[in-house]
């Protein structure tokens, strides 16, 4: 990746983090940890990969992104605002009663949201349906989904994995945010979902294991997925939950908690310092 591109995508990722934390702070509720861990994935997809038109969010031939771990809506909304689907100022309406930014993504209400999600395991199945549609109608759009490593404890994820391989959906690429933490504690202790890569490989997927906070590794994985024919791709992304805000990093407690005013100020100071000139 060229240095200028890397800088640009890095700054988009930081802005996504700033937007996500701002949204959660304004709502005084929401899920910062898993929004911060996927900022590089969102940045790469929206600013280097996906064909989307913010001025025409329902464009039929667009690439699609399903946030299957729907509770990380603050990250998605921040990415959509960063891309221009709606004004960034709207992020501070998140979870408010008159807002179109619901606690979990609502495709009917929010421009750029491709699927209503929030109930874990459902989104990935919908992404299979979107990819299947592309195949049967000879459309060349690609479908992406982002899953959590806790989410894959849902059996439906594996029903979807079976179906995507069965129908050879090479237009589908999922990113599993392997941050290692879920609400009740470390995933390894709550319900061990590892080894994630071997599970998807056994289901017939092209499977990659990367550092999900590294933009260049994400790029290589996305290119690998596009070059892979006859099977879907699962990119297992080792990430840091709460990445970018020191006190949130690798902390179970920041899965679904809002920062207070002082914590918010500290987060903004830390994140703004990560912007590259």
């Amino acid at each position: 990746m060229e240095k200028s591109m890397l800088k640009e995508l890095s700054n988009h990722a930081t802005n996504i983090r700033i937007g996500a934390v701002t949204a959660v702070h304004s709502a005084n509720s929401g899920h910062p940890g898993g929004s911060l861990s996927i900022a590089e994935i969102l940045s790469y997809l929206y600013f280097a990969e996906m064909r989307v038109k913010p001025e025409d969010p329902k464009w039929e031939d667009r690439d699609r992104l399903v946030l299957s771990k729907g509770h990380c809506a603050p990250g998605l909304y921040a990415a959509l605002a960063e891309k221009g689907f709606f004004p960034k100022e709207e992020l501070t309406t998140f979870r408010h009663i008159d807002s179109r930014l619901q606690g979990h993504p609502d495709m009917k209400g929010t421009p750029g949201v491709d699927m209503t999600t929030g109930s874990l395991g459902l989104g990935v199945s919908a992404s299979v349906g979107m990819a299947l549609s592309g195949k049967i109608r000879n459309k060349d759009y690609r479908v992406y989904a982002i899953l959590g490593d806790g989410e894959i404890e849902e059996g439906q994820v594996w029903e979807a994995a079976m179906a995507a391989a069965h129908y050879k959906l090479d237009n589908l690429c999922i990113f599993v945010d392997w941050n290692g933490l879920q609400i009740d504690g470390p995933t390894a202790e709550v319900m061990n979902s590892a080894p994630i890569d071997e599970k998807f490989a056994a289901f017939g997927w092209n499977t990659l294991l990367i550092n999900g906070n590294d933009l260049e590794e994400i790029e290589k994985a996305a290119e690998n997925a596009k070059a892979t024919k006859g099977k879907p791709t699962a990119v297992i992304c080792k990430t840091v939950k709460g990445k970018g805000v020191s006190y949130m990093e690798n902390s179970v407690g920041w899965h679904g908690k809002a920062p207070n005013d002082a914590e918010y100020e500290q987060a903004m100071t830390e994140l703004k310092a990560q912007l590259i000139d």
Partner: protein
Amino acid sequence: MADKIATREAYGNALAEFGDKYDFVVLDADLSAATKTGIFKKKFPERHFNCGIAEGNMMLIAAGLATTGVIPFVSTFAMFAAGRAYEQVRNGIGYPHLNVKIGATHAGISVGEDGATHQCCEDIGTMRTIPGMTIINPADATEARACVEAAIKFNGPVYMRFGRLALPVLFDRDSYKFEIGKGVMMSEGKDVSIIATGLMLHAALEAKELLKNDGIDAEVINIHTIKPLDVEMVAKSAAKTGAVVTAEEHNIIGGLGSAVCEALSETCPVPVLRVGVKDAFGRSGKVPPLLEMYGLTAADIAAKAKAAVAMKK
């Protein structure tokens, strides 16, 4: 009248027939021989997708297809469509109001020998609580065929309920006019209104004849669309007769009987007695004795009609 035919069979035939005229796909969960979507598959193999024994996933694959403008028909047994996959239908289809058509077969006690695990008498209840869900329960092959075409033309999620049991054909295929949300006046009367759906419409028409012996003139209304209910027709009939009996092959909790009670308590409170499965699970057996055991016969409707008439002030 023509030979007997099950509404599931008419559903499969309709999918195959309308496949020429309309652009849609069909999903099934390893039951295409029983749900009869196999009839469609034989004619349009490239438009039929087996999702394996994974109903929850199938509902969301359908939802994903619908987001791209494809119309999917999704079929499995009612137990698995409205029971196992309830949450997927609620959150993945109902909440985003996606254009998915659920063709659920093997509804009710008349599944017969397979017994309680497969006799779904709760599906209307679960589906009715989902905002924006349209629910159609056809009474014969003509209505089953008509509801498939109506569902294709309708924009929004539709739950269609089909049965396993072969039934006489009540309506003429060429002249029958089917409109979602509109009740059908089968036979006018003045003493009591029998409001029936699906399989039980046949028993309701028989009950009308039985009641003549007791000097009771029953009105019979066919409600194929349970949601949205034709409140106007139901209330008008209740106002005229002053007593109502509902008849359905479903739990008396949550189905047509509940819907009619809810509507009439707000528009025209009169005595309403419900014929249906009395908050019980089914069991294995041949269908006619099962229907008798669970109180789903013309005689049961007639008895309730007499009781309802007696309750009039």
